[in-house]
């Protein structure tokens, strides 16, 4: 069966520090992968998506970046976090036409 993992589950970081969030999927190959951010009480904002290794599309200009070093690994990074980067970060993948989401990472920037 296919599963999606994210880590860490929670993270508290100071402003200006770097960020690396990881997402991995199992049980599938060459998936479309997505990073979303969700602010408290809000909907989902698409940040990046990837259709293959090394292929990244950015939806929202910001101080975040994404990389896909392996087929089933998707990484969200920042060199210097801002307060506004706080939120719930969700990785997702597609099977058939449907997106399925990971458990999320709660990021708090202080």
């Amino acid at each position: 069966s296919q599963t999606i993992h994210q880590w860490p589950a929670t993270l508290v970081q100071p402003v200006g520090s770097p960020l690396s969030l990881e997402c991995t999927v199992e049980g599938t190959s060459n998936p479309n992968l997505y990073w979303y951010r969700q602010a408290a009480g809000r909907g989902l904002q698409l940040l990046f998506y990837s259709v293959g290794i090394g292929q990244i599309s950015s939806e929202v200009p910001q101080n975040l970046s994404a990389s896909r070093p392996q087929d089933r690994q998707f990484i969200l990074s920042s060199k210097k976090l801002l307060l506004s980067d706080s939120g719930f970060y969700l990785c997702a993948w597609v099977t058939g036409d449907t997106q399925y989401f990971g458990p999320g990472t709660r990021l708090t920037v202080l």
Partner: protein
Amino acid sequence: GESVGLHLPTLSVQEGDNSIINCAYSNSASDYFIWYKQESGKGPQFIIDIRSNMDKRQGQRVTVLLNKTVKHLSLQIAATQPGDSAVYFCAEDSGGSYIPTFGRGTSLIVHP
């Protein structure tokens, strides 16, 4: 992109009642619709989907209705239970883009 919106941000119901969560969409090219349930602190979970060639689809205690004429989608939950308390999102996709547009969510509160 075109928007997908929800009529009510919060819906409160009594346990055992039926719940109806509504969603409007504006992209007439949308051909695939999904409902997700998101519990506090967790990622959204797929509930049910429907394609534009259908107007109704049923799952376990849930039914999705699609009215393409007025671009309206609804999720009906039968015999609502406290465990159904969550935020419900509708999403639409068109042309197999695999980049769905999400609504802002409706919070369903079930009172015992």
